[in-house]
């Protein structure tokens, strides 16, 4: 059986190739889209002379291969340089946005696990039929209502009507945890609901399947305590596919954050991406998209590792 290290090394080349191909695609697509940073900087009342001067200043008059090489160079050296339009250093912009998005995504992930876990267990084990029906109805609703509707409804209820939570904005958790949590709750809940519903259904199905396994029946017959039964015999069988799903849902949460950040004025990567993309801020968009691809690749890699840890047979395949 292979070690974790060789298992990891076996997956690295394909991950790097994905990143390289993604960089070429990102660069090419951005250049193929009409409009450039100089045009958006100059504004609708500007003259062509102003646009030409800006293009020269931003280095957009160089050949595309030279611009691509310069970008790769900046990635290798770690000096991402200044933003063209948004302002500030690209590394700072992405760092700040990443912190905010990570906070939102982790908050949503935590809620996904808590809510999805509770829904899954409740849906699979509740005594009363109406409880299971309610869980099914809730998960169906959470899956079918789009986040921009959920977000508006949450704001109307908790901010406008009840006035207990702020409708948007962010206070960093590290700066003021008590305020930060309140700013985080609504966007995290809005983002988490669909994922929690998926997770709950998946987990519920997994538990139901695990309950039919022979070793679980044997454990029940042996009179093992229910808590221990669930932890030691039912969940280990039900969790591996759920962990895989959670990895995929993390990607969806990152993607979904773009929309939720707009609804709640959450200054994360989604907001930054929207702002940079609409204004053709090449350095920000390029680095940001590549980072998102890298995060997705990393999450998939970690998911594979977690899967291999939960089921050692995977490493041997």
């Amino acid at each position: 059986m292979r070690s974790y290290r060789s298992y990891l090394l076996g997956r690295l080349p394909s991950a790097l190739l994905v990143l390289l191909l993604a960089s070429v695609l990102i660069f090419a697509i951005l250049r193929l889209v009409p409009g450039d940073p100089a045009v958006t900087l100059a504004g609708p009342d500007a003259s062509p002379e102003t646009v030409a001067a800006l293009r020269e200043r931003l280095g957009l008059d160089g050949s595309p291969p030279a611009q691509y090489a310069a970008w790769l160079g900046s990635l290798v050296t770690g000096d991402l340089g200044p933003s063209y339009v948004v302002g500030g250093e690209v590394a700072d912009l992405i760092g700040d946005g990443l912190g905010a998005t990570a906070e939102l995504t982790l908050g949503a992930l935590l809620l996904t696990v808590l809510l999805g876990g509770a829904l899954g267990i409740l849906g699979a084990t509740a005594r009363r039929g109406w409880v299971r029906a309610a869980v099914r109805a809730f998960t169906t609703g959470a899956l079918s209502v789009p986040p921009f509707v959920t977000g508006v409804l949450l704001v109307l209820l908790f901010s406008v009507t009840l006035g207990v939570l702020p409708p948007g904005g962010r206070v960093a958790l590290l700066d003021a945890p008590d305020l930060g949590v309140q700013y985080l709750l609504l966007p995290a809940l809005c983002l988490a609901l669909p994922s929690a519903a998926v997770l709950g259904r998946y987990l519920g199905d997994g538990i139901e399947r695990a309950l039919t396994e022979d070793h679980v029946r044997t454990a029940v017959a042996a009179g093992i305590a229910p808590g221990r039964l669930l932890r030691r015999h039912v969940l280990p069988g039900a969790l591996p596919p759920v962990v895989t799903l959670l990895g995929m849902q993390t990607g969806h949460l990152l993607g979904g954050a773009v929309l939720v950040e707009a609804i709640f004025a959450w200054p994360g990567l989604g907001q930054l991406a929207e702002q940079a993309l609409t204004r053709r801020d090449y350095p920000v968009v390029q680095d940001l998209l590549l980072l998102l691809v890298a995060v997705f690749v990393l999450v998939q890699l970690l998911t594979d590792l977690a899967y291999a840890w939960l089921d050692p047979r995977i490493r041997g395949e």
Partner: protein
Amino acid sequence: MTDPHSFPPPSPYLSSSAETSAAPAAASAGPARRATLRAAGAGALFLGLGLTGCRSAVAEAERPAAAAGGTARGGTLRVAVNADFTPALLFAQSAQSYQHRLLYNTLTRYDDRLRPQPELATAWSYAKDGRSIRLTLRQGVTYHDGRPFTADDVIFAVRNLQNPVRAAQLRATAAAVTGFEKHGDHALTLRLAHPVANLFDLFEFMIIADRETVEDAVTGRKLNGTGPFTLSRWSPGTGLSLTRYDRYWKPGRPYLDAVELRVVGQADALVSALRTGQSHLSFNVPGKSLALVENAPGLTVTDYATGAGAYYLGVNTTVRPLDDRTVRQALARAVDRDRLLRQSLGGHGLASATPWPTSSPAYSEADRTHYTRDPGRARALLKSAGLGGLDLPLLHLSTPGDTSIAESIQYDLRQAGVRVTLEPTDPATAQKRLIAQSMPALWTMSHGFAQVHPATLAVSAYPFNEAKNTSHFRSPEYTRIVREAWTSTDDGTAAARARYARISRILLDEAFIIDLAVRGQVQVASTRVRGVTLNKFSYLNLDDARLV
């Protein structure tokens, strides 16, 4: 009695446990309940941390200002903006220029009748030939870093705007300043290439930035001005935090301790921020959303009738049959400006066939209503041009507000026999096509610069530029009258009014830009807010603002 449904009914485990032993079934209710309760407990803890924390985020946002000497002093004014500050556009008019007059000053400011009032320039006098102007500068003004403001800062400011990379729309006016003569530290003469009619537009527009840190300013690292507030922090994507400058040159001002400009890009979120009191002030509530705040308790809606630009229908005069001005006039007559104003702009603004707001010296009620909706006449004009019907593409920005305007135009033109195909386009692409003069037959966007001196529109707004514009419209008469208006300094005279009337007449007759509605700035504010004003370029002035 044990409930047989303690584990799921479809499960064989359930049936076996229920049938063979009551004990496991009874016990099996435990893990389900406990696990669920644990999860719920953790969730409740997470929620409780927020809701019962030391402070309430909602209450924190509503801390009152202190009253002293009959005037409310202190407090933090929170302004919701729909776009972030763009430091690279510090010296250009952009979508978000509200912070300019908070951090900086200008030389003069216009009143509502476009009469210049002192700011950093306290007095001025033109030479008789109009080829120079002498400025007396305010003394005792310091930048936020303590350095005194002098005539050298004015010289730098003008030269800075002459640099094309600053993308200043008033660069042509700045470029007309060809020399400087200092008279000590607080007076100077600007020498001009020719008399410049819109020089005070430049003085209203041009912020006096610190010449020693200008490169830091255009990257947002340091914004050192003479304005009433200093920059505490700029968080890209989040907004700006400003604090009171204690050595501001206006005695006792500003009243506020701090100002926060928060980026709230989404319209619903912006409205929620205002309705919940999280933000006190905004100028970015879209027209269609204004109805939501007009009757909301604790909010007031105020129109700035002096205008901030205008929506227009652009016409490419090289596309047949739009090279025939009769056809263009037919389009101008087909549009229902009043309905567009009501439906797309929430009724705020002024339906108008000309670009001028009522405060402009070029404004005329007859010109404003020169084209009113008359589909019958539009069809007749098309017929006289030999056209029974027409198919035209219309490019518009893909934002909801602009799409609504485009759909309104599409409907109106269809009534006149013109079938329009909409081409939704993202703003960057649209701007590229505008500047590259590669627009399709029709496009709709908004333009600025009609709210100041009439000459500025044709000199600084590219769609109206007499030498090069997106409509490909050229006319010796238009060029002559625009040049004449720009190089004359006889404002207020009958001759000046006649020139402006001539410009309006050409715009109406040639219809290469068909104006639809003058848009004013619409201020939505908490009833606690007093003393807010904007300059003609939408720089927010909070010198006298307070929270009551």
